[in-house]
């Protein structure tokens, strides 16, 4: 198993009555509620958590991209990653971003990732995402062409990294006379690619075909198992066995003294994340055209127009959407989940919602000391003889 420490950098100061007074923490929540002085302190706390993860032996530290929201304060993951590169020496830095269709031109991403890869001595892991629905409300891009732009931006970036320039790109969205980026990445043929997803079949196929690490985010565990089975199947269709590291699960985890105390300590922050930060009318989260007609119908049937309903930490924990408990429980459950899903990369969120710095650091220490060492050598039952 390899371990990535993941951060969303949430704004933890939403008011108690947020759920009744505001539509969503996305797109329209007034930025007058952002306090830059508190923001300064917060960035340094969150960044110190990311640096602490390297000290604790995480293989990867990972940053994220979201725009114009209290959900996460990293609109530029590249800014965060370059800060971390300067302050770390061993850990790989995963950038999950970049939302390539939201950029005016993907060559900027090709250039910035290559710069960071060269500066870091080849420690960069490059994520590619489409950007989520709310971000299409904040940028000019039409959600109906987001997927097309994503695919073309990806193809252009990979070609720019792997084929000698200058060449001409005859694309539909990014036609370009001269593609010739300096610098080129240090890692050859290019930095490893991770693809965060909520499990769309198209993305699973696309990632498996290219041997990209598929990262399932915020999903009840029974779905994680299903998506990973699909990924392995797809990989076989493309003629190879997917190595476990290529399958990753992103999950918020809280390790306490006992199951009861862990749940009590984690609950306000878990519920802050899912009920406040993720409160979402469907019109905000799935602008028309973002999903295919078929998927849009499914989402509408599942949620109605008001979006997801309130949830509790207990429910999230039971569904395996979060893992909360004593170190023994967390270890046992993670082994069980790894056995069922076959993942070889665990992307853990140890600060979530409104969790204060000291509590997050203590959670990190307990996870690294009491869970990670034994889990590291655990091999999924999926890969025992005859099962793969």
């Amino acid at each position, binding site marked *: 198993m390899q371990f990535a420490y993941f951060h969303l950098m949430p704004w933890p100061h939403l008011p108690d009555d947020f759920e009744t007074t505001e539509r969503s923490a996305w797109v329209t929540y007034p930025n007058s509620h952002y306090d830059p002085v508190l923001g300064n302190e917060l960035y340094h706390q969150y960044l110190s958590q990311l640096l602490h993860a390297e000290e604790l032996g995480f293989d990867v530290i990972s940053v994220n991209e979201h725009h114009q929201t209290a959900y996460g304060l990293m609109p530029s993951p590249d800014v965060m990653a370059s800060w971390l590169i300067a302050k770390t020496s061993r850990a790989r830095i995963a950038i999950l971003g970049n939302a390539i269709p939201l950029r005016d031109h993907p060559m900027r991403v090709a250039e910035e990732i290559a710069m960071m890869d060269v500066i870091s001595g080849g420690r960069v892991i490059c994520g590619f995402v489409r950007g989520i629905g709310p971000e299409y409300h904040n940028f000019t891009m039409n959600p*109906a*062409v987001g997927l097309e732009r994503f695919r073309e931006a990806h193809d252009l970036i990979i070609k720019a990294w792997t084929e000698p320039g200058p060449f001409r790109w005859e694309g539909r969205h990014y036609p370009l006379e001269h593609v010739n980026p300096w610098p080129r990445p240090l890692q050859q043929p290019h930095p490893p690619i991770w693809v965060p997803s909520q499990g769309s079949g198209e993305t699973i196929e696309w990632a498996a075909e290219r041997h990209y690490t598929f990262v399932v985010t915020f999903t009840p565990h029974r779905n994680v198992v299903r998506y990973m089975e699909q990924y392995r199947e797809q990989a076989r269709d493309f003629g190879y066995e997917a190595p476990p590291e290529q399958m990753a699960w992103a999950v918020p985890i809280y390790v306490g003294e006992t199951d009861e105390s862990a749940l009590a300590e984690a609950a306000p922050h878990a519920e802050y994340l899912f009920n406040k930060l993720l409160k979402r*009318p469907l*019109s905000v989260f799935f602008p028309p*055209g973002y999903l295919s007609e078929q998927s849009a119908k499914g989402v509408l049937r599942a949620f109605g127009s008001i979006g997801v309903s309130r949830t509790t930490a207990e429910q999230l924990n039971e569904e395996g959407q979060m893992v909360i408990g004593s170190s023994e429980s967390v270890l046992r459950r993670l082994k069980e989940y790894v056995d069922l899903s076959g993942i070889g990369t665990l992307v853990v969120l140890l600060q979530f919602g409104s969790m204060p710095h000291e509590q997050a650091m203590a959670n990190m220490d307990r996870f690294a000391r009491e869970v990670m060492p034994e889990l590291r050598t655990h091999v999924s039952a999926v890969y025992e003889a005859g099962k793969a």
Partner: protein
Amino acid sequence: MTQSSVSTGELAVSGSKLHMRQAGSGPPLLYLHDELSSAWSPFLELLSKRFHVYAPDLPGFGESARPDWIESIDDAAFLLADVADALAEDGRIAVAGASLGGWLALEMALRAGPVVSRVAVAGCPGIAIAGDPPADYFILTPEERTALFFNDPSKAPEVDEDHMIRNEQMTARLVWQPRYVSPKLGGRLHRLRAPVLVAWGRDDRFLSRAHGEALVEGLPDAELTVVSGSGHFPAIEQPQALADSFMSFLVRS
């Protein structure tokens, strides 16, 4: 109201196919539906007393497929110009439209030339007015939209789920950016030679009447009429009053 016989079929133009309803007798009238629904309606029933009404599902809406090349208002306007050519009698056809369909009627008439005899539109977006945009259709929940669009929310059309999703997706494809306007339209209006009637719901909260006034000011031959007792969709809230205005305007020669 006695229902005339509405026939349904496919119209093939310039390599594309549109699902189309038609009814009535008289001179041809091409009707371009709004973003909510392409269904036959009491309003169209009234128009069909005086006209042979052709009501295609716009490309990507209702039962009509989206040809790959239709990505913008401009593209759709060119396809609809071919539709006007195909349906004209003696080289002439009147055109009407509501909301998005009204905008497309104007854009089409600009490109189609003299085949378009007269144009009647209601609640027509498209003109950019600084500081006075349409409400953001796409961020509103369905319930918020209904409250914004209609004086009487019970008038909101029932649209089946498949069509609702398709209509909304295609609307977004056409008007997402810039949002519900064409910055070029104002500078082109002087080229529209056909007389235009611009109708506006008195209580339109989606799109201010200033947009209608700007159209009338920019068009060489246009007049504005205000429909009482209606929000953004007078064809739905006041079908008789709007049909009377449209017909008396469209039959003038």
